[in-house]
């Protein structure tokens, strides 16, 4: 009796931890895009753009919009009836869904653009940034970064020309013969803070995950349980976000 109770308790606990697909349907591209958006929003650095997902969702939404418009026209021609009343009801629901999905698409684009704008000079002027630019941003986003950086530089030129010599550059903190090239080149470039703290939730047990290594070569490792929530530096567990299926997620 108590074993059955324990099992039921465990099953309920698992369901409530919302790691099971039954609780929230995640098979469709829209749900996967929603998860991508949440991840993008919470991560301090750019994630790889989910081009395939976005295209699939856009195509599906456009097709649905056309179908709904056609149905409305057919209904207008038919002139009404009981069948039409329930069809109209469901069409309202479908329009709500279309609006939700369009909001999601726009939010995803907005989140990415916000991060791109914050780190525009990082992407263009540092080596690491340039790698990220080609790996994780789409063609359109790369063009946007370049144009944005040009626009901001021009704006700064207009504003900063009133300041004394040495303080007029958009990215150099100050030009002095004592500063090294590296310091001069990147002092004011805003880089993504991969050491910032985020909440991780683990979708699978991971045994002996190495968290750090000290100077003597000793490694710290930790056992991670499914469902555990940790507040940690993004850099510590970020590799687990990209496994397929992901072993960790940001909450």
């Amino acid at each position, binding site marked *: 009796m108590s074993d059955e109770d324990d099992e039921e308790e465990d099953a309920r606990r698992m369901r409530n931890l919302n790691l099971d697909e039954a609780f929230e349907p995640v098979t469709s591209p829209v749900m996967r895009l929603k998860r991508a958006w949440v991840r993008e929003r919470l991560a301090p650095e750019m994630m790889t753009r989910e081009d395939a997902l976005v295209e699939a969702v856009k195509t599906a939404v456009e097709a649905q919009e056309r179908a709904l418009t056609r149905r409305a026209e057919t209904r207008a021609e038919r002139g009404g009836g009981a069948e039409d009343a329930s069809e109209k009801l469901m069409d309202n629901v*479908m329009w709500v869904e279309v609006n939700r999905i369009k909001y999601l698409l726009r939010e995803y684009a907005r989140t990415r653009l916000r991060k791109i704008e914050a780190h525009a000079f990082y992407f263009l002027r540092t080596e690491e940034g340039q790698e990220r630019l080609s790996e994780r941003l789409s063609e359109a986003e790369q063009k946007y970064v370049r144009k944005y950086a040009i626009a901001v530089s021009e704006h700064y030129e207009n504003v900063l020309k009133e300041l004394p010599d040495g303080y007029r550059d958009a990215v150099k903190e100050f030009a002095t013969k004592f500063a090294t090239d590296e310091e001069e080149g990147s002092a004011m470039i805003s880089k993504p803070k991969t050491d*910032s703290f985020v909440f991780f939730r683990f979708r699978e047990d991971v045994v002996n995950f190495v968290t750090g290594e000290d100077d003597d070569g000793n490694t710290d490792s930790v056992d991670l349980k499914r469902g555990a929530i940790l507040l940690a530096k993004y850099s510590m567990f970020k590799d687990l976000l990209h496994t397929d299926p992901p072993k960790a997620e940001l909450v």
Partner: protein
Amino acid sequence: MSTRPTFTYEETDFISQDILVEITPHFLRERDQLVTAEYGPFRPNVPVVVPLWVALALKQSGSCTIELDDWFKLENILATQEREKTDAKQLQILPRCYVEQARTVSKYWLEDMPQQSGMASSLDILSLRKQKLRQSFRKLEQKLEDIDGLGFLSLQPEISNLELTLIRCFSCASMEMSTAMFSNWSLRVIQNCNSLFPSSKTPIPCSEKM
């Protein structure tokens, strides 16, 4: 301190509205293919499982009633509230989006709900849980942690989405600040100061579950 990106209430509502709920439709309709999935068939007085946003959309034309989840039924929620009060440390098991669900159901299905105090209890539960979270952060503050050593804090897995959103800005910013303060360099400075001015507090490794 950096400004942390976190979700607004509208966004947490949007995210939580994909959870599945049971409704009783008042209309007849065969299965329909929506973009995300197929739902139906809808038969009068036959319960069907749909996402919360579908239930809301149908409710607005008066076409369905919602069935309350087990946890939101009055006797269960009062029992959870009691357990939250008596257990000073452990958060009780509740669905991840319980606040958003309670708010949505109470806002749109008020006339269908048998009694209204389910909502008041869930708000009470939220404030009890927030208090427990605050206590655990306060305990953390009292120990000088070598956070740089271990590098993470674990939270109870029963914590819900909204509670995480509420504590996100504060907890992430304060962890960053304390990591910066207790980096090796500053720890040596503090230890030198300690040797000049001995105090009773000593650094303890940060490994305790909150």
